């Protein structure tokens, strides 16, 4: 690090941004990894930045990593049907079918371009709105978060599939599995573990996600090896350009996705892909009569619109109040605190050097990553034209290794057993059209909704008054969200002529 610090500022910045973008992009490519894992791995190198003057370079490097990883996690979802992170699952619904039709470059370039443009646009707005964030943050409390999660459940049950009952069943099972382990009141009681100590911490999200998506998709890829159409360099370039043009063509959808992503990102603790799914659902909602889930480019643009705009949204409460927008920012915040930044204080907001590094790290990181990824997409999408025997098995090994490594190899056999179990469950769900995205999302969000409901019991319903409780008009967002959720479910149950059946 001393060697880097001896260089000119331009070289330092160029190096950090390039390394951040490359590293983040690389982790983003690994199926089921995502930005959280990219940030966790930074703990192993943080000591290199613990030198006077290098702290700010770390801000630059880390934020470039986050944005690059967010952009890069579209690859796995689009190319092999395994979401890079929970947010990228929405992109996969239409991206993967497009890739199977030989339009991988088209899907990827539109996803990356949309994510990049919205990242830059909302980045500027986000940083400009620093002084007003407190007012926005004050509006969002526990009831609003509960309302939003309910709406997300309803949206995903109805939008991604025509089988609403099956989707609701998948959500119920996802919620039940999320109850396994310590109860959310934090008082040490364990539930539904059948006495198996391994389950005390609950089922690992990574194990569940990989089992549910990776194994069935890789098996399918092996079975359907001849399905992809080979395209030449010229067609690649044409598709890339078409993807970029399609974002411009559907710019209002991209903007709508961006706004949804940014607003949900602003709310503390609303990670888990809520913004991406809400944006995807809104896109389906405004595109009446169109088929989704079979390779509709609008589905990709809608959900990717929320991707990086959500990241800037989540960054704001983290640095302004020290209240992380999501789990990934909690990890990142701890690293910044380690290096001596007073995250969540006015002192930090007055540190113009910090803000400069953050702003430019975010903006340049987004721009550079976007450019590199679009260029890179051409080469990575060639994976589809190679006989899956050559890459599917190594990819599976890489995924299994990343799952086991992420748990520190502490419960090796148990993790392998659960991977196989969820692999089987994922295959059954896929074949019988039980929505896997709905299942995954309910599993991720159930602990949050359960703990929020417990909080609400203590904060608002402690007097036993439910129906006439003042919460319904004092927190109108909750009321509106619940009404919307009920309406959506009824619509899903009654309207039978919908075509989408992604599972």
């Amino acid at each position: 690090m001393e060697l880097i610090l001896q260089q000119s500022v331009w070289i330092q910045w160029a190096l950090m941004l390039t390394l951040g973008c490359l590293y983040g992009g690389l982790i983003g490519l690994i199926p089921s990894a995502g930005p959280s894992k990219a940030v966790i791995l930074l703990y192993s190198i943080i000591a290199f930045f613990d030198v006077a003057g290098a702290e700010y370079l770390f801000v630059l490097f880390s934020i470039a990593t986050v944005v690059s990883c967010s952009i890069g996690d579209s690859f796995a979802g689009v190319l092999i049907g395994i979401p890079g992170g929970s947010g990228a699952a929405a992109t996969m619904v239409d991206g993967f079918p497009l890739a199977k039709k030989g339009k991988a470059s088209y899907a990827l370039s539109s996803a990356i371009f949309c994510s990049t443009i919205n990242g830059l646009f909302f980045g500027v707005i986000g940083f400009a709105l620093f002084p007003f964030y407190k007012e926005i943050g004050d509006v969002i409390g526990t009831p609003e978060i509960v309302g939003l999660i309910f709406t997300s459940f309803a949206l995903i049950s109805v939008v991604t599939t025509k089988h609403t009952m099956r989707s609701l069943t998948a959500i119920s099972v996802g919620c039940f599995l999320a109850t396994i382990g310590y109860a959310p009141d934090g008082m040490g009681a364990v539930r539904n573990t059948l006495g198996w100590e391994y389950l005390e911490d609950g089922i690992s999200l990574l194990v569940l996600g990989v089992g549910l998506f990776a194994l069935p998709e890789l098996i399918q890829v092996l079975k359907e090896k001849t399905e992809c159409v080979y395209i030449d360099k010229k067609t690649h370039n044409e598709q890339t350009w078409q993807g970029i043009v399609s974002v411009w063509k559907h710019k209002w959808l991209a903007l709508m996705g961006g706004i949804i992503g940014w607003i949900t990102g602003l709310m503390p603790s609303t990670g888990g892909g809520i913004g991406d799914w809400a944006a995807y659902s809104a896109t389906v909602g405004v595109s009446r009569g169109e088929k989704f889930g079979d390779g509709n480019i609008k589905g990709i643009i809608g959900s990717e619109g929320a991707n990086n705009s959500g990241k800037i949204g989540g960054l704001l409460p983290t640095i302004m109040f020290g209240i992380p927008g999501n789990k990934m920012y909690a990890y990142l915040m701890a690293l910044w605190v380690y290096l001596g930044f007073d995250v969540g204080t006015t002192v930090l907001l007055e540190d113009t050097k910090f803000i400069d590094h953050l702003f430019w790290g975010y903006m340049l990181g987004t721009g550079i990553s976007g450019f590199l990824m679009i260029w890179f997409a051409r080469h990575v999408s060639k994976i589809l034209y190679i006989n899956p025997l050559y890459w599917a098995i190594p990819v599976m090994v890489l995924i299994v290794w990343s799952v086991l490594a992420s748990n520190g190899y502490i419960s090796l056999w148990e993790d392998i057993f659960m991977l196989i179990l969820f692999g089987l469950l994922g295959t059954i769900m896929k074949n019988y059209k039980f929505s896997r995205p709905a299942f995954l999302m309910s599993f991720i969000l159930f602990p949050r909704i359960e703990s929020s409901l417990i909080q609400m019991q203590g904060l608002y319903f402690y007097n036993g008054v439910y129906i006439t409780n003042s919460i319904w008009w004092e927190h109108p967002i909750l009321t509106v969200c619940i009404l919307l959720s009920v309406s959506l479910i009824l619509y899903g149950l009654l309207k039978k002529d919908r075509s989408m059946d992604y599972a």
Partner: protein
Amino acid sequence: MKRLIMAVLISASLTTFTTTAHSENFNYIVAGSVSGGHAKWAQQVTKQWNKFLKNYGHTISLRYIKQQRGKRGMVEFATTYKDNPTVLLQPKGAIKWITTSGGWKGYDPKKYITIAGQLEGTFVFVKTELPDIPATHIGGGGETIVDAMAMVIMLCGPMELSEILQCQKEKLRLVYGWKGSGQRRKAYLSNDIQITRDGFAHMRKTYKDELKSGKTKVWFSHGIVDGKLGMIADPNSPHTFFDKVYYKKWNKLPSGDYFNVYRQTAMFRSAFGKHIIVHANNPHYLDLVNSFKEMLGDKGARKILDKKLGVYPWTIGKSTEEVHDRVWKSLDKKSLKNMEIIRRTFKENTNINPKLN
């Protein structure tokens, strides 16, 4: 060119080998998540400690085992790393061990030797305008029970155990379901709850504006454990010591069964909250203790630690164990029984560890 690259690689490998051949890289297990309070303490300490430990040819790397709310880290230390002299542990306190009956697989906090520790204190913040029944948060694996107990004693005053348990239901609203500290800080700042607890660092940041405007005040601080007197005032805010504030309100010093359990728990938190242990007969024990001493003796390192972790007393080696011994001795059958009764009223799944009976 190829030869040049090979030569560079070989010499780099040789240099690395020769400089690391006689050194030990220690794994410092933090029994908690990478972004929690325990981790932050470990990160700040190792950041400074490594500078002095390298003179002994060693380095420390942090490893986080958050499973089973930190219990897994302690069990791993006691089992997998039983004979490994290069593994250090920062346990997640001792109260969890006291109040949980099974699954420790040989982990016993009294079995190990201590490198060092910091006696820590916690502050309780309160809104200056309170409703009739103020609300506070309960969560974090039962860690906040001790704070709620102190609030109950302060609100209810001198009472018998059965009376104060009834008063607890009437004078304080307990809100459950909190996972991260960020959530509860936001809930406090938006007045959803009116009483909260936090460490010294947050007085200067999270509550700074509210303290300045008079919306919030430091209600009391638990104080820190002392080798002789039990608990003494927090050096960062002596006038807010629990006993002083209580005396001012109720005109007598706190006492009784409920208070005794509160005081014991607070002592355990202060003494065992942040400390580092290794297995007995560790061959590197002296290197670790001496380098830690050097770190604390260094003005620059100490200034940074004071700023980041608060001006709290440090204990090294035997002096830590003396404090720990005193705290262990404060437990008896009656107090353990009362501890179980009281903690269960906070809905905790408390089962006193049979090793203590």
